[in-house]
């Protein structure tokens, strides 16, 4: 048995340890955010965070993830209470088919955790591993800029509170 820590809760699974995380998230935990795109780490649709860093869940066996904090799209917020990056994607209408968007949001979230005020080039480089086929890139970039404003406000509010 492997115990996973997903979105702040533990989950025990009897699934074979070589199974990539994606299949446990989608089929056992019934989390839809992470998507199968290529199974090769080339498109980023399956991206989730492990200890705050983006990983390809389609490639990463669950055996490697015991004891690590996994965050999926669902861990950032819900339809009734979306997180700042999710909210920014809604505000910018940054989706067409939307299939790649969860991976984009996870990667953007990981970037903003490291750097709450990234410039355009930094955002483009951070999103480079994620593919979008509908051509929604311009809106995605706008959404990440917008989300960074939310992150900065949070950071400065936290800073003031601690003073």
């Amino acid at each position, binding site marked *: 048995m492997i115990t996973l820590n997903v979105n702040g809760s533990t989950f025990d699974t009897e699934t074979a340890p070589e199974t990539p995380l994606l299949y446990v998230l989608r089929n056992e935990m019934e989390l*839809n955010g992470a998507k199968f795109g290529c*199974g090769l780490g080339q498109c980023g649709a399956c991206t989730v965070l492990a200890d705050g860093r983006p990983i390809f869940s389609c490639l990463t066996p669950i055996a490697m993830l015991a004891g690590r904090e996994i965050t999926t799209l669902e861990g950032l917020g819900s339809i009734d209470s979306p997180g700042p990056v999710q909210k920014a994607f*809604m505000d910018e209408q940054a*989706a*067409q088919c939307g299939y790649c968007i*969860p991976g984009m949001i996870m990667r953007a979230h990981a970037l903003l955790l490291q750097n709450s005020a990234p410039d355009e080039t930094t955002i483009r480089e951070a999103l480079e591993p994620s593919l979008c086929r509908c051509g929604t890139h311009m809106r995605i970039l706008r959404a990440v800029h917008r989300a960074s404003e939310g992150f900065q406000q949070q950071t400065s509010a936290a800073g003031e509170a601690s003073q």
Partner: protein
Amino acid sequence: MTVLDHLELSRRSLLKGGGGLVLYFSISPGRLAAQEGEPTPAPPAAAPSPPKLPGSLSDFPFLDSWIRIDNDESITVFTGKAELGQGIRTALSQIAAEQLKVDFSRIRLLTADTAQTPDEGYTAASHSMEKSGTAILHAGAYLRRMMIGLAAEELGVAAGDLKVEDGAVVSSAGERRSYGQLVSGRSLHVTVNDQTGFFEPGNYTVMGQPVPRVDIPGKVTGEPSYVHDLRLKGMVHARIVRPPKRGMRLSDLDTSRIDDMPGVIRVVRDGNYLGVIAEGEFQAIQAMQALQRAAQWEGGASLPSDTDIYDHLMKLPADTSVINGPETAVSPPDGAKIVEATYTRPYQMHGSIGPSCAVGLFQNGQLTIWSHTQGVYPDRAAIAEMVGMDERAVRLIHVEGAGCYGHNGADDAAADAALLARALPDRPVRIQWMRDHEHQWEPYGSAMVVRARGSVSGSGDISSWNYEVWSNPHTTRPGPAGNLLPAQLISASFEPEAPTNIPQPAGGADRNAVPEYSIPNARVVEHFISEMPLRTSALRSLGAYTNVFALESFMDELALAAGADPVEFRLARLEDPRARDVVTTVAKAFDWTGWEQRPGRGRGFAYARYKNLAAYCAVAIEVDVDGATGRIRLGRAVAACDSGQAVNPDGIRNQIEGGLVQSASWTLFEQVRFDAEGVHSADWAGYPIMRFPSVPETVEVHVVDRPGEPFLGTGEASQGPAAAAIANAVADAIGVRIRDLPLQPERVRAAMQA
């Protein structure tokens, strides 16, 4: 209504009815008979031979095909079109809310489902707004007028004394009748007559507004939104094994090691068709990998290679026809400057980010398939034929997939689900393709060749124009069962039907090949090649991408020969004021006349009206070309689009911007690689597409609204102009014309060194 509700409804109905759903809806008798190959009967007496009705009302003239109002005041709108990520769920709901004068949130929209919605064929050709949108517009307006008439009768007041507010008719004295009360006990099975003069675009409050997409909140928070997210009780997982290349036969297979693998329920083999069903999804993948190793294949068709494909195609038998202009080639007059050019476009793929997926359930003699097909009705007919079932025992329900951009693997995956579910009755079977299945087995956009020969006179007039296009088919959709890949593999196999071209004026291979400019004696010839070295079908904009790329590149080449400004050269030959408007809007927003050239920097312009019938679109873009590497950097892009009455301007912007960026990817990066051994573009490393560092610096889209004008399809309007604008900008930057797509760095370097 969310996708989840839709799934829940389907599931409940399915459980209750054992697969056979009993829901009243109206299929026009004309359409039913036509499907069975019988002459169209006269319309019922209640509908005295109406004139041809607008949009899809011509096939489904009855109000209850489109709108249902229940006693509890709930309003259901039906469309046979499918949400593909283009936002029609939102736009169609806006039309209904506006015309019915109810709050947007009250509209429940049901999309393509053979048990519930009209047969609107394929969600294709940018037709959803023109066909379904127009039908809902007229049906909604008709229903509202009907409600006013009924209320006037009940209340004994004049219709002019009544107004409509949020689903109720109210008199000036304050008496109120809700739609639910008014329709109670009444049939809506009435013909929607013409509504001329009933629309008031000036007073619209929902249509014309950038209403946020109804599907985005769920998609960005992980709500079940796609067929991939469907989890039915007892569902099992399947994977398929395709031959290593086309035409190969399965000669030997020992499944003994696979049968004993953990979770494996069944290996499914039927002729050359091979798949495996397991309890767990990763178990199915592991079994598939073992099955790939165990399967022995022989034979197979030899392919030409991607380097000699154009010569190969042009030597194949072709159906040649002059589609515009004189029968024989037009000779340039003496003294004219002659320009000759050959343009090529390789095979390119849809490349959906999510591979094709479907769920099938065979239970009590009924087969139900959940699929991201673009056409639930035609796909149902093909699947029923493949499995030898009565169409009425097969139900196709559309559930969104990843963006498809045309005929990708969706229909074939639905056929996989049918075969696999039939092999394991009573359990829902979910099949999802692997990445290599999608890349290697989807039908591609055809490789194409265009040869243009024209001339300009000393006064700058275009004095001759000869244009020839060679292409494989652009539509091989089902159709008959033989157009489904799995049907070609099973032992009782089906042959694909002989492909045909879509005739002018829309055209298929020759889509947008006829110039919209006033050019005397413009001669356009099409060479339609039926034999397909690689399977091809509809990729977003069909032949228009190549034809607009070629035609608009050639216009720039002629403008250069005439010493004319490319924008002025176009405007001098464009009569349609709406075409001129998008051209001048872009030129102004881009500051075409004030733009200053720098070394390595160029600008390009292009215009087309999609199919010469749908939305008008112009694009200008600037590029920087790195002389050392040959790398093209896209700078500022400006587009303008006239889609008629704009229902959701942000939806139009999203489509135009997305089409432009997608086309930039095709134009700069994309080419299917293959040789005698098979297709080598098996993943994103073998078929690179545009990534974030390469997308344009900015894209701005101007929507030219035309209140009261018919809706014009927009989803495929910007691909052609974007490609030509980029090619023209590169030529402007480096002073040399590149006519072979994609515009890869090595081609740029070679052109600059030549």
